[in-house]
């Protein structure tokens, strides 16, 4: 029998027992809806995460460190290429070389140091980081109280909320509600902090000139690497309080106080890399433990990353992180898919039941069809078509239902988020592939459910079937 005839007969048969077949189709719809709801939640969460990462500016940023930096992010690279001791130094020359690469928009050193900050004569120890002016577009600054730095060299400081709480002595106990960022900002904005830091000064001694102990000072390279460390103070004006944490991905190294980049560079703060490089003997130029490279277009990130690797540095970008993230989401999808499919599995039993009932009811009809020339295959295909039609119709309704459930939950959750002063989010997404997949899956599950009834109908003895009243 041809497909259009088969479809027509199947739909006619389904219409004959409208209530029963509708109930079975509703069962499939609920199954598909649960599958769609689960998977669209997974997709929505993934998209939300990607959106966050994209907005954080991390998608177009490559973090570069020297292989001499033993905390390098990709240990695999150490197996090839020079050993860390022989590797290239990440200095100003290297920075400029990277800046000249194609598709690079900005290269800036990662200045990060721990320091003491005095506020109202009380010392507070914290990690400080420098930010370029381009960081203003980072979504962490969206809900900031106050303003961003006026210039790249301003003696201004932005505090993260947790540090502001510490300054005001308002650090909440575990589980206690956090104070509102606006409440924290009011007494702090415009106030001054005193930063005490270790400055790397010019060489205090000129060993080559003194002609001292040869064992220590004869080597001119070592002499050039020597410098003095001076304790300095700088008064800074608090201009902004951040609600969010722009460095949340950095873990324990994340800073809670931020300075303008050029200003921070001018301070020549002593950093860990300086100590390490003194053993190597350098030319007195500043050495960076890591630098950040911003790429004009996120799609070019791989090419730039490869070029930097060829220069002998270790690189890390969010692309690497997103690869692991994709693995995590694949597992999440599998789990959500399995749970979502359970309802569909139950619905498939409904299909078997409905079709077996249909065989009993239409026993005589099957006998008539066989008597007038229907083959076993024709009868089998007819029952398959009925199962498939229920699957497709159930699938379409189920996708609509799943989408509606998603919208309702999204709406409800956003009302809750709003009541908690959290900006609304779209964490529910039904992409086109999911629509196609859900309908296709319902169709396949229905066909599988139709296997047994269709086989049973095809095997009916026509003589027995014709006797059936």
């Amino acid at each position: 029998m041809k497909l259009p005839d088969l479809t027509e007969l199947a739909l006619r048969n389904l219409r004959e027992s409208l209530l029963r077949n509708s109930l079975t189709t509703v069962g499939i719809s609920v199954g598909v809806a649960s599958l769609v709801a689960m998977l669209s939640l997974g997709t929505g969460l993934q998209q939300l995460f990607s959106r966050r990462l994209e907005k954080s500016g991390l998608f177009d940023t490559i973090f570069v460190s020297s292989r001499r930096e033993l905390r390098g992010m990709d240990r695999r690279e150490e197996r090839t290429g020079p050993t860390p001791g022989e590797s290239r130094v990440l200095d100003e020359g290297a920075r400029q070389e990277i800046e000249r690469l194609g598709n690079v928009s900005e290269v800036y050193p990662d200045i990060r140091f721990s320091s003491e900050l005095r506020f109202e004569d009380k010392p507070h120890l914290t990690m400080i980081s420098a930010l370029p002016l381009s960081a203003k577009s980072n979504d962490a600054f969206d809900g900031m109280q106050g303003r961003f730095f006026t210039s790249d060299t301003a003696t201004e400081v932005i505090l993260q909320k947790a540090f502001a709480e510490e300054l005001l002595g308002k650090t909440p106990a575990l589980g206690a509600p956090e104070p509102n960022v606006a409440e924290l900002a009011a007494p702090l904005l415009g106030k001054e902090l005193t930063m005490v830091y270790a400055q790397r000064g010019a060489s205090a001694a000129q060993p080559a000139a003194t002609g001292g102990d040869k064992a220590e000072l004869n080597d001119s390279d070592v002499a050039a690497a020597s410098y003095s460390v001076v304790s300095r103070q700088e008064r800074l004006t608090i201009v902004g309080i951040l609600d969010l944490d722009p460095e949340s991905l950095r873990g324990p190294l994340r800073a809670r106080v931020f300075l303008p980049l050029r200003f921070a560079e001018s301070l020549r703060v002593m950093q860990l890399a300086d100590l390490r490089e003194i053993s190597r003997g350098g030319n007195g130029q500043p050495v960076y433990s890591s630098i950040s490279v911003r790429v004009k277009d996120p799609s070019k990130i791989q090419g730039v990353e490869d070029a930097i690797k060829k220069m002998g540095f270790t690189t890390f970008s969010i692309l690497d992180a997103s690869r692991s993230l994709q693995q995590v989401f694949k597992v999440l999808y599998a789990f959500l898919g399995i749970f979502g499919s359970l309802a569909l599995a139950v619905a498939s039993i409904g299909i078997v039941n409905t079709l077996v009932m249909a065989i009993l009811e239409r026993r005589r009809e099957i006998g008539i069809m066989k008597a007038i020339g229907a083959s076993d295959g024709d009868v089998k295909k007819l029952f398959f078509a009925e199962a498939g039609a229920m699957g497709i119709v159930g699938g379409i309704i189920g996708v609509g239902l799943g989408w509606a459930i998603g919208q309702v939950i999204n709406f409800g959750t956003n009302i809750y988020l709003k009541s908690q002063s959290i900006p609304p989010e779209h964490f529910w997404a039904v992409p086109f592939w999911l629509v196609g997949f859900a309908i296709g899956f319902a169709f396949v599950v229905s066909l599988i459910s139709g296997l047994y009834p269709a086989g049973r109908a095809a095997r009916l003895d026509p003589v027995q079937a014709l006797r059936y009243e």
Partner: protein
Amino acid sequence: MTTFPAVSSPRGTVAIRSESLCRHYLMGENVIRAVDGVSLEVHSGEFVALLGSSGSGKSSMLNLIAGLDRPTSGSVVVQERDLAKLSREELAKYRLHVVGMVFQSFNLIPSMTVSENVELPLRFAEVERSQRNSLAREALERVGLKARMDHRPSELSGGEQQRAALARALINRPQLLLADEPTGNLDSHTGLEIMDMVRELNLELGMTVVMVTHERALAERYAQRMIFLADGKLVDDRPNEPISASGEPA
């Protein structure tokens, strides 16, 4: 009235041959010998009546000839096909193209219109829709039901339903028409109308007709040969002089 093309088998050749045909059923521990060693020959274009009391095995014999059932032993050869040796698929094709069947209880599908019932075998034969429509119209016109083609079987009288069943049996232009008590559910006048149509098909198209009936008068009126069965065995096989359409012996 539209006429069907002639059925291909030449008159006089053997259309059906059974040899020691048996169909036994097991009922608990008892063996029911529904057909028990029947050997017969039916020639192309013949109108044969299978007669016997209830349980004599005439319907079982007809089911074996129709390819709806398989013999326990012996053979039944129709148009040079040994039905016992055909696969299920081949038997379905045989029923579709060689045999047309008419039943006592009409056996129309109630959810379909008369026209859809009639064209159903053409769907199994994968005939195009436009051709199906014209063939169904033609068949219904032949049995005088053209005006009722869009009605459901339940809206038709018994005679009309049997005429629709006859149109369905003829739609694939079979060489063999098998009728199982075709007038059993009809009043005598309507029964004769149906039988006149069957005779017309037999005479005009040369279609071989095997009719199961327990009404001897009906067999004597239409059949050229009467075969009597009792307890599954062939007990008598005699020629008959049917009465012509005009009421005279043919």
